[in-house]
């Protein structure tokens, strides 16, 4: 059986929807961040797969994913710094605690 494009897209869609579900239901900020990573990864997979299947001659999707990973890393680092800082103030990591932008 040959592996078609769709076969990759379906798991990534499931992954995305799981991420979305997690993001919406969790109150723990770290858990939300984890869900966010899921969604990002699902998108990354889509980029590469589509690039590989439909446009094998060019590498934009791949490079885009590369950048996305870099940016995701930066973003996560910053987000975790904020979360820890917030935790210091409120002793909680719930998103409800972070409604105001001042400490």
């Amino acid at each position: 059986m040959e592996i078609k494009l769709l076969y990759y897209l379906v798991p990534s869609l499931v992954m995305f929807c799981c991420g979305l579900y997690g993001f919406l239901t969790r109150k723990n900020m770290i858990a939300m961040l984890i869900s966010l990573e899921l969604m990002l990864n699902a998108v990354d997979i889509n980029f590469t797969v589509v690039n590989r299947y439909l446009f094998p001659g060019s590498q934009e999707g791949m490079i885009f994913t590369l950048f996305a990973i870099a940016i995701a890393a930066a973003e996560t680092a910053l987000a975790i710094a904020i979360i820890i800082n917030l935790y210091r103030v409120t002793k909680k990591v719930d998103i409800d605690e972070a409604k105001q932008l001042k400490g």
Partner: protein
Amino acid sequence: MEILYAIVALAIIIFSVLTVTTRKILRSATYLLFTLFAAAIVYFMMDYEFLGAVQIAVYAGGIVVLFVFSILLTTHPGSNSEKLANRHVWWGILAAVATAAVTGWALLSRCADLFSSKPEMADYTMQDLGNAMLSTGHGGYLLPFEAVSVLLLACIIGAVVVARKR
């Protein structure tokens, strides 16, 4: 190949579902790690070895470790994350299903492309990638490369400033 695909697809689906459904946050991070590995394997299957390596190094090696540390820093070991309200769960499921429906329809509307098979691809070496990253013009990514490096720098400084003890 097909077997590998089946394992990877199942891993992706199962672990991502587990990531968002488990109540222990540390476990959640662990499942995320598995999902990311599965994604890395997808990249390898697509012949993007470098990308797969980056995925493992940055995500699995860096980000997940960051998560684990922060979880350990902010939660008391063994404690469960909060019990989710039913209402929230149902809204979340509804949103997820709706998204899946709309996106699925978008997929299906392009069915001609969806069933194309994997074409051959010229070997893409590290050298090509390096050239692409450091050149300008068509196919060159010097500007985004620099932008990302500035961004990373800014993030480092920002993270330091934000997390610094007062």
